[in-house]
């Protein structure tokens, strides 16, 4: 049996404190409220990581809001996955056609999931679709997507807390922290780092 997760000591560093998060949420809420003044808004949160952010953000927004939740499968590399494609595990509970929609994300890194979701939601014909994320990790971006509201742009580090998990734990931390590498890594092998693509190429070839 694995030892229990130690929420506090497994975190090497607090990257964004609780106070910083709450201040930023208020700031984002004010901006969103101003941008959507006189209109009503549908917030779509992506389970599970963005739940705390969604809960705080919606209470910082002063225009009328509806909320909805989605969950999509994440790549797991399993050969048992029936389709090998991302799947909607939980769909919207109501139509967003002709609605002003704000997609609320906890973190954007590769942009792969977000890219999929944006395409999916645009297919539902909302009046508008904007994106709000608490954390943006642009160093790892593969698909460029315009993000309308960004809380914090962070370096390329593995973060947990405030909804973000490792192995489904650490979501209930009230801050965003950097996980100690030894928590998730195993000692790397020493031998033979080389890969074929990096061996000395023949003339004219990479």
């Amino acid at each position, binding site marked *: 049996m694995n030892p229990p997760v130690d929420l506090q000591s497994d975190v090497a560093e607090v990257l964004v404190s609780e106070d910083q998060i709450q201040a930023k949420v208020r700031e984002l809420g004010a901006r969103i409220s101003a941008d959507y003044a006189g209109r009503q808004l549908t917030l779509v949160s992506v389970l599970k990581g963005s739940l705390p952010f969604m809960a705080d953000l919606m209470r910082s927004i002063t225009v009328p809001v509806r909320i909805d939740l989605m969950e999509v499968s*994440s790549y797991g590399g399993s050969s048992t996955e029936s389709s090998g494609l991302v799947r909607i595990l939980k769909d919207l509970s109501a139509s967003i056609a002709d609605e002003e929609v704000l997609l609320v994300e906890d973190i954007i890194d590769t942009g792969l999931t977000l890219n999929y979701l944006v395409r999916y939601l645009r297919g539902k014909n909302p009046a508008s679709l904007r994106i709000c994320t608490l954390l943006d990790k642009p160093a790892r971006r593969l698909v460029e997507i315009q993000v309308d509201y960004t809380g914090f742009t962070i370096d390329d580090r593995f973060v947990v807390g405030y909804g973000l998990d490792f192995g489904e734990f650490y979501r209930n931390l009230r801050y965003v922290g950097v996980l100690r590498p030894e928590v998730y890594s195993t000692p790397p092998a020493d031998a033979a780092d080389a890969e074929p693509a*990096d061996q000395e190429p023949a003339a004219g070839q990479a």
Partner: protein
Amino acid sequence: MEQRADSPDDPSGTDAGPAFAHVSEAEFARILDYYQVPWQYEPHTFPILWNLAGDVLESFSPDFFLPDADLYVELTTLRQKLVRKKNRKLRRLRELYPELRIKLFYARDFRALMLKYGRLVLADELSGTAGHITPSRTAASMLAGPFGAARLASEAGQGDGSSATSDPAGRDGPGDAVVSPVHHRRRRRGAARRAATVGASPSA
């Protein structure tokens, strides 16, 4: 820029799909397929060093091209201290072809990607192995994947799920599609079109 000949993609002669040089590349392709992001494997080769006679002495073929993002991706699972040669080639590539958008995924980046998807065991396995995969494994585990048809549609300009109005979750058709030789030929024609726009040699 040169377009790759068919043979490096298909040493088996079956043209069942690209023969990835490394397990990490196959895994990366599976991730792209999963999220329905069109990709091409080593579609273009860029000369980066010539002799006085104009012969190409050195060239660089980024591992992946993502046409929707107009982005090249080069993967390496080498440790940071061993990637100097690749960094040098990449710098040279950027000097000669400044219009290219290319991202180098280092070992730490790939490891983080695997961590994100709960595949750290694979990342650990790749460290310390040559990482070869066979063409047969490629064909069976990779290109039997579902995104071949979407890639084909992308190349054919028929909509590929990247359209702003598409509904990827509602798409049932491509689920069992397999990349066919026709798909590869079309992809290569696309590469040829791109080659024509970039130009053959910046020193010419």
